[in-house]
């Protein structure tokens, strides 16, 4: 029996593929039509083939609590998520605008601090933030850019409007999965590629390399770019290795590097020391240099901050860029855009309560059952409260945490995440998803067409994190003719 979209009901949520009454949106016509031409057994067969392809291609991610089983097959759903080209153009402009303003903000914070003096962003919020690095004050990185690689999380509300949920400016991950998802789809649904006019995503790594190369302190020669990884036990190791491979860059660990007496960074090679110009570092600030930050860090390189401050090596993202990657600072991004660019934000923020503000905190405590409360400094969905689904006991425990350290939390109303048809045990059902596009800024900007779509595989769930049972989908930006 063929699958029929008339049996599909997204229950009032915005569905990315099916507009209503079983009719596909323009960008999803070809996909919906193709799925309709298959039987459920054929669809399951494709899903199995995709899972085998993921295994063969060695696409894995790591879950911390799994003991010796350090890598797991990446969860992938075969039905692509489609977005129309015209919708996307607006998102793209919004993301470029946003990262431009964020970089102006970071550069300002570590230099003149105009935005703090003008009282647009409270000084305490910044200089007392755990992400503010005093060691970076006075530094002017090339192009004035601190966050070269940004991953912003977007969601779509009931009416289909895109909102920014958060900006990841430290070491955002996921782009390799975006690229690999496309390759898996090509293996599983090759026939769809001929029928559809989607924007290619494969150039990301060339753009990433160009962005990194544009930071080199020695502009006259082909720069030596390396990817610095904490090593094989890191949850994003697959990606570190993948990006290094795709860029033709060396994948290094801290122990492969050293800072010479000339303050330049070198790597240990079979022919002796070799100078490094640009480090795409995938380790957190506090582990970068045991001489400046965490003295116990074995992941970093002693003297690295000295080399960076003296301009002998470029670091991407720059140390201290995380000062703008904080769920409390997030609430000021629309103000930053107005302040630095004299523009209105193209992409709206989700309405957010800063629990550090007395009135907001009281409101949040009163409405815990309607809000999502998040620590300002965590990622991966850890340490948050889903008010509407939590038990009274959980809410009680959480309100104690909140009262003890209100500055550490923000709260947002539960946004209804959009859905997309997803292959489940019982057939094809709507599942909630978000989107993480990746934005580059060096000498130029680049935005990935689409991004990584993460999908909550459990019915009704909003938790899309792969570390907590989330899956993923290929994301297509389709230009409708």
């Amino acid at each position, binding site marked *: 029996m063929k699958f029929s979209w008339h049996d599909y009901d997204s229950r009032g949520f915005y569905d990315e593929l099916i507009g209503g009454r079983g009719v596909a949106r323009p960008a999803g016509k070809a996909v919906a039509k193709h799925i309709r031409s298959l039987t459920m057994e054929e669809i399951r067969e494709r899903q199995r083939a995709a899972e085998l392809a993921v295994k063969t291609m*060695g696409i894995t991610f790591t879950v911390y609590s799994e003991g010796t089983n350090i890598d797991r097959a990446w969860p992938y759903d075969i039905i692509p998520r489609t977005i129309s080209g015209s919708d996307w153009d607006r998102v793209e402009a919004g993301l470029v605008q946003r990262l431009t303003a964020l970089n102006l903000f970071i550069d300002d914070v570590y230099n003149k601090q105009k935005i703090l003096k003008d009282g647009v962003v409270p000084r305490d919020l910044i200089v007392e933030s755990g992400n503010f690095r005093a060691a970076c004050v006075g530094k002017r990185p090339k192009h004035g850019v601190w966050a070269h690689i940004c991953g912003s999380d977007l969601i779509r509300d009931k009416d289909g409007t895109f909102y920014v949920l958060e900006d990841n400016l430290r070491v955002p991950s996921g782009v390799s999965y975006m690229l690999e998802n496309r390759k898996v789809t090509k293996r599983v649904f090759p026939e769809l590629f001929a029928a559809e006019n989607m924007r290619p995503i494969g150039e990301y790594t060339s753009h990433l390399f160009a962005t990194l190369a544009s930071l080199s302190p020695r502009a006259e020669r082909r720069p030596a770019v390396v990817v610095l990884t904490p090593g094989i036990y890191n949850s994003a190791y697959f990606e570190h290795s993948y990006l290094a491979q795709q860029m033709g860059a060396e*994948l290094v660990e801290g122990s492969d590097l050293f800072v010479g007496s000339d303050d330049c960074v070198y790597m240990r090679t079979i*022919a002796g020391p070799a100078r490094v110009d640009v480090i795409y570092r995938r380790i957190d600030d506090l582990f970068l240099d045991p001489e400046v930050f965490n003295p116990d860090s074995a992941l970093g390189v002693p003297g690295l901050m000295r080399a960076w401050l003296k301009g002998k090596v470029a670091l991407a993202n720059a140390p201290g860029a995380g000062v703008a990657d904080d769920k409390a600072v997030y609430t000021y991004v629309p103000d930053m855009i107005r302040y630095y660019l004299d523009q209105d934000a193209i992409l709206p923020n989700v309405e957010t309560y800063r629990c550090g503000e007395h009135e907001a905190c009281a409101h949040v405590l009163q409405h815990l059952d309607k809000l999502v409360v998040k620590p300002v400094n965590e990622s991966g969905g850890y340490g948050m409260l889903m008010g509407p689904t939590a038990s009274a006991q959980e809410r009680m425990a959480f309100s104690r945490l909140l009262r003890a350290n209100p500055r550490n939390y923000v709260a947002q109303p539960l946004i209804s995440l959009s859905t997309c048809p997803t292959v489940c045990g019982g057939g094809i059902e709507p599942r909630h998803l978000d989107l993480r596009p990746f934005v580059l800024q060096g000498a130029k900007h680049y935005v990935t067409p689409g991004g990584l779509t993460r999908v909550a595989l459990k019915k009704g769930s909003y938790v899309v994190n792969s570390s907590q049972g989330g899956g993923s989908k290929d994301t297509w930006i389709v230009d409708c003719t």
Partner: protein
Amino acid sequence: MSMLSRVAERIYWLGRYLERIENTARLVSVYGNVLLDLPRPATLQWDTLIAITGSAPAFTERYTRADERNVVRFYLADDSNPSSIVSSADSARENARTVREMIPASIWEGINDLHIYLQDNVDGALARRGRDAFLSRVIEYCQTLVGCMAGSMSRDAAYHFLRAGRYLERADMTSRIVDVGTANVFPWRQGQSQVQSQGQGQAQRQSARDDGAEESPYEAILWMSVLRSLEALQMYRRLVPERVLADEVVDFLLRDENFPRAVANCLMALQSCLRHLPRNELALRTVAATIKHVQEANIAGLLAQQGMFDYIDQLQIEFNELHAAIRSTWFETAV
């Protein structure tokens, strides 16, 4: 761009582990076939294989009886034996995973496929019936990988380290397989008293040879099995068409400079890899000395005077020294 010392080391070990998988498959395959060729009551047991490969301590730690099932499990499926096929495949995959940016995607995928195949099929290979097909398939996977490497890798340091690991491992295993052959043949050739006159260190090997003392009518068949396990039979026949005898076979497997699994050829291939690498003086000196030692060996004389076991022991010590020279030159790069 020059290669990281850490990466060089992992690629070298990737080469060694992949070769070890193939060689272990060949070793188990030839041994099974040799035993099938023997008259009953069999004069050889599976524990001889354990003794020859120097695995007795590791084996007795885990098993009490050296019967076929245990020995085969030990070599193929035992993940607590670091040299078993499944362990080598794990190690190969871990090394490949840490150097993925250095190797073509097809090789990474091939290693994953091999890994998946082993997980799914190794238990079926413990019984004789499924074993040959399994071992052939494993060898095929390895050869496909070698082909991918030859066809898609630039001839840079990564390629040279990968091959250096492969050739050293291969030289080592060919020497062990020659050991298997001589251990199998000698029970018929030599009298018990002569065997006992050998040094104490040979005690375990002797036990295998003590059982039989008459002339072997099966010698040619056994050596053909050995040659076949290395896919060397046709190449050998083209060189020595009229007979398959110990002197010629051992000479061929150790000293032939053209056959790719012969020790001399492996060492010369290793030498050519090392020539491409920087700061190679110590390693080149060491490999040249070993090559000379192989070239100057008098095989017939060694066999006649039961000197072959000591000679191969000495060769294996030299292989270890060669590995130590490679490690200290390129993997332990000091600032």
